């Protein structure tokens, strides 16, 4: 391994890390503005012009708050919980292809940290690991509400992981690869997977909502029943970590949805753009398109949150086990039959 390779990857990791943190930070601002717009209010407008310094003010407030660790809690796990939640949220960005290779200073640099050949499964693994932060934090708080919330989070994640995995299988039948980079490259121009797998995308999207604990699936932090859910006992930046992890999760799952189903950095007319802009700027423009799609999905997450009320717990389980899983299996069968017919003739 030469040092240039290490430095290149290091810079890439740092940039991606920084971008995901900034996007997560401004998602909190966007969430309030979207909520305000949907409820016909103004939203935050005091810190800076249009309130754009609000996330900084929030961050400062989080740091300044008194840090309380309950005496009867499990100290180590209480601190480890939020850290684990944030870590699991961040490592998902490693395999997402952010753009086609860019030519910078005579060197072609791939805009992806690592193109492992089981990329889709890696994402799936990271998603399934994400629940540990909530579970460990909720249990270590030694609070009944937190524990109930942790248990809810665990059962919800396990239930929706199944439907999510099944919806990905139908996609993989079509793409014949597990590498995210290859899946995105196959969707060149207009051939986005959502056109061939609309049902699969719908199931995947609903499951992403459940996996990120976003409304209408935010039962782990259902304040009418559980006070604050798993982060009831948390204060200061540890609470900030949990809230932040949710926004990073939202960013990562938006990126995964955009990459798997909505063409990633592909857009119609990209070939003529590539000729026009040259090998440096065309891939960067593609990356900008990708980020545009991600932002659209993040907006969609917020739109749904402020439109649809929270599910009841039995409704959640019914939807997952009796609605989405049979649908996903039917989707696999239909996809398989259609592929078999196409290959035959």
């Amino acid at each position: 391994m030469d040092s240039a390779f290490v430095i290149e990857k290091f810079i890439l990791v740092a940039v991606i890390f920084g971008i995901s943190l900034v996007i997560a930070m401004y998602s909190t601002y966007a969430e309030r503005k979207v909520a305000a717009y949907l409820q016909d209010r103004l939203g935050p407008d005091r810190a800076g012009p249009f309130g754009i310094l609000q996330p900084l003010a929030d961050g400062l407030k989080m740091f300044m708050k008194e840090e309380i660790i309950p005496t009867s809690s499990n100290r180590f796990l209480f601190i480890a919980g939020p850290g684990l939640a944030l870590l699991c949220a961040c490592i998902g960005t490693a395999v997402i292809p952010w753009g086609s290779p860019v030519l910078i200073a005579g060197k072609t640099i791939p805009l992806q940290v690592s193109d492992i050949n089981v990329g889709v499964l890696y994402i799936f693994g990271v998603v399934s690991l994400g629940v540990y932060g909530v579970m460990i934090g909720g249990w270590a708080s030694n609070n009944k509400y937190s524990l109930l919330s942790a248990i809810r989070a665990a059962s919800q994640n396990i239930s929706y992981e199944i439907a999510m995995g099944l919806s990905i299988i139908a996609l993989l039948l079509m793409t014949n690869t597990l590498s995210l980079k290859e899946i995105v490259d196959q969707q060149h121009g207009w051939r986005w997977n959502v056109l061939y797998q609309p049902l699969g995308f719908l199931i995947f999207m609903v499951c992403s909502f459940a996996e990120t604990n976003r409304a209408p699936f935010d039962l782990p932090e259902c304040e009418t029943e559980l006070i604050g859910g798993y982060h009831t006992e948390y204060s200061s930046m540890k609470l900030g970590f949990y809230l932040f992890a949710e926004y990073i999760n939202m960013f990562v799952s938006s990126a995964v949805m955009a990459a798997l189903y909505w063409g990633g950095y592909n857009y119609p007319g990209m070939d003529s753009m590539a000729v026009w802009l040259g090998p440096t700027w065309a891939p960067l423009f593609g990356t900008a398109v990708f980020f545009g799609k991600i932002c659209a999905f993040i907006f969609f997450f917020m739109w749904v949150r402020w439109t649809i009320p929270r599910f009841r717990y039995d409704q959640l389980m019914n939807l997952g086990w009796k609605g989405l899983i049979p649908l996903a299996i039917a989707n696999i069968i239909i996809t398989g039959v259609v592929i078999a017919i196409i290959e035959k003739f």
Partner: protein
Amino acid sequence: MSTQVFYFVATLSIIFSLLVIFAKNPIHSVLYLILTFFTFTVHYVLLNAQFLAVVNFIVYMGAIMVLFLFVLMLLNLNKETEPSKSPLIKIVGVIAGGCLVVTLIGSLKSASITSPLILKNPGLGLVENLGKELFGPFLLPFELSSLLLLAAMVGAVLLSKRDEVEA
């Protein structure tokens, strides 16, 4: 390089698996078990078996251990609820464990160090090759084992259903 990583990770595996047994709190035991499984994932990656590595990651760390943790949290085990074991059971346990240790030592003494295993095809563990092997020469055993899993699943559902009817 790879050998050193192996020894480092192997040491970690042994330490974590010992901690699984010696941890007083059952929740800590499960958490150490998760770490042990994570070191196994690293072992699979070192063996260039990426698919096995990631499946181990998803199935064991992401699903089975979440269920373990889930059940333990529901049980809420602590000192008061711990069943007290009679001394007789403890003595029987010590004897049985001792027998196992003697057998293990005996079999290890007769074993000799084998030469390191070299894969004929280093890419065997990659998804594509593994899939071709599983759905080619090993199709029948593969499908039979999936049938077995399905039967177990249906059985579990049936067992949980029967109580409902009787009650």
